[in-house]
């Protein structure tokens, strides 16, 4: 078991023939992913890295049975690409693209809500990986190892840091998901937590949040009432000044709200093991699982 992606996942890459798309398609295949199609408007009928390219997502899905899509399309066209996958009924869409306008994302979220068929991960995220079986995104597969710890994060390299700590301590991962650093994302923590709770492979969860918004507070509420598995949380940005966007479009303390302090307090109040130091994520999971 794992969540959302496994060895049976068939991936179509939108923007596969571009620089990023091309590079990461190869990396995804090396990580065990079944990439079955690419989509680049105007290049339908050709092959790229031996994979058939289609003009539209609908054609790609019809011809290859793709059931997940990866978006490597530039910011100006990314919302259109996501909407195309939603329209084609692709159940899982992973948008890696950074810098999609917020108002575009409002339209996308609304369309996903109306369709009721698609789950979106991202945008502005490193993607999702079930180590050894499937990776949709840009994470370095080499640091991951199959195992029982779920990882759920708003960050990219900070996730790698946490995963590296877990792997080195001898704890593999079930599925790791970067949900994205934008203010409007497809799948907030609360929409993914139930999947980890239900997954028999996952024994514990690492939750990595950051300043801005209220996603961590909502996660704390859900975990307190519904989660039976141990959770270790870290919140980045305790030293971030208010009113400044810390790299991620969504990482901003505005009107005095969304501070690391508030989030940690909410998580602690829910009985979650919150670490103040990012260096203690791995060891704390090991302790909770009785393996330290």
């Amino acid at each position: 078991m794992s969540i959302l992606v496994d060895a049976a996942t068939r991936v179509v890459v939108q923007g596969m023939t571009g620089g990023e798309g091309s590079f990461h398609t190869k990396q995804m295949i090396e990580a065990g992913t079944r990439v079955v199609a690419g989509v680049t408007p105007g290049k339908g009928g050709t092959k790229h890295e031996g994979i058939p390219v289609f003009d539209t997502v609908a054609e790609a899905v019809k011809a290859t049975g793709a059931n997940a899509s990866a978006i490597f399309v530039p910011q100006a066209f990314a919302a259109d690409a996501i909407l195309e996958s939603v329209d084609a009924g692709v159940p899982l869409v992973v948008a890696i693209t950074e810098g999609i306008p917020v108002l575009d994302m409002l339209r996308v979220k609304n369309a996903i809500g109306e369709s009721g068929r698609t789950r979106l991960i991202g945008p502005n995220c490193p993607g999702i990986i079930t180590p050894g079986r499937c990776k949709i995104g840009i994470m370095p597969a080499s640091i991951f190892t199959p195992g029982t710890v779920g990882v759920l994060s708003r960050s990219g390299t900070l996730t790698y840091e946490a995963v590296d700590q877990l792997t080195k301590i001898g704890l593999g991962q079930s599925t790791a998901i970067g949900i994205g650093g934008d203010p409007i994302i497809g799948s907030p923590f609360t929409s993914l937590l139930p999947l980890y709770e239900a997954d028999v492979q996952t024994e514990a969860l690492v939750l990595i949040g950051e300043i801005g918004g209220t996603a961590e507070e909502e996660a704390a509420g859900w975990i307190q009432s519904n989660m039976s598995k141990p959770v270790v949380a870290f919140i980045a940005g305790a030293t971030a000044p208010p009113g400044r966007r810390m790299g991620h479009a969504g990482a901003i303390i505005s009107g005095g709200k969304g501070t690391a302090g508030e989030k940690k307090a909410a998580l602690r109040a829910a009985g979650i093991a919150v670490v103040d130091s990012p260096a203690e994520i791995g060891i704390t999971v090991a302790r909770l699982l009785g393996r330290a």
Partner: protein
Amino acid sequence: MNVHEYQAKEILARYGVPVAGGGVATSAEEARRIAEKIGGPVVVKAQIHAGGRGKGGGIKLAQTVAEAEAHARAIVGMTLVSPQTGPKGRLVRKVYVTAASEIAHEYYLGLLVDRAKSRLTIMASAEGGVEIEKVAAETPEKIIRADISPSAGYSPYVGRRIGRGIGLGPDQVKQFVALLSACVRCFTEMDCSLVEINPLILTPDGKLFALDAKVNFDDNALFRHPDVKEMRDIHEEDPLEVEASKSDLNYIKLDDGQVGCMVNGAGLAMSTMDIIQLAGGKPANFLDVGGGASKETVSNAFHILMRDEDVKAVLVNIFGGIVRCDRVAEGIIAAAKEVHIDVPLVVRLQGTNAREARQLLEASGLKLTVAETLDEAARKVVAAVGGAA
């Protein structure tokens, strides 16, 4: 991206939002000419990207043209300290001269994106002229809200409902419906992240108009609004931040820090700042060099850090994933040879090929300290600036 009040009002006026007439001036003489044209009492307002200007003496009422000129002379060139500028204040380069208006009532109107609901949200209140955060904290029942769905869009009933909710009479509700519709169009067509009219005033003769206005834009959408990009006033930004943005570096200067940091990825960059503080030091900046950390970006980043006089030591923390650590180490070595680094340097590379990277760094002959774990890196760099504070 932020713009000045005069720019915000120009934009809103374009969409049909009523604003008081006026003009922007960079000198007392110019301010005088604008005041002459307006005729009658005017208000002279400092143009900086921070609120609370009146409290710092940046907003003055003038009964005569001579008075307007005198106020402008005092304000242009002053360092304005307001509750939002921080103790250092901001140099005022421009004033906005606008017709003074009589006020029967002050309202609040704001449009922004509600992250949790993924909707454009309208907020209005009969308590105008004060910070909305204060109203929200103390008397939340006085704020009337409405969410706009992307599929249904804005409809006039929303304006009628909110207008009634903040206590407007029938004539004013009509004006409010048109004004709100203009604000929504402005927000969606211009890719705003905030449109705020505070106060929205009612004059004794029953007219509604925007006395002050704030418009912010979504940075991610600037690529489709070249006209908005041109409104950027780099004088309102930190010079090092402007410099960094030219090299596509995400850099934010922090007050009173001593440890410069260079990190790949925003989350890891924030965490690095946090762990420096936990070790007893103070981070001098946030700096995200991006996922790959190439030689060129690392070199640009060193240049920025070395120009910050507060920086007494530098911590480089890079997680090498797909770009292997040994390649990153080569980039750091090349960049460190190019840029004169005159403070202690601690480098921590973790991830793919981290051991090879450490060997490269140690053999480079550069004066730097290598660290393996995050903890160790933070302790070493804090020790380099004189230990825990």
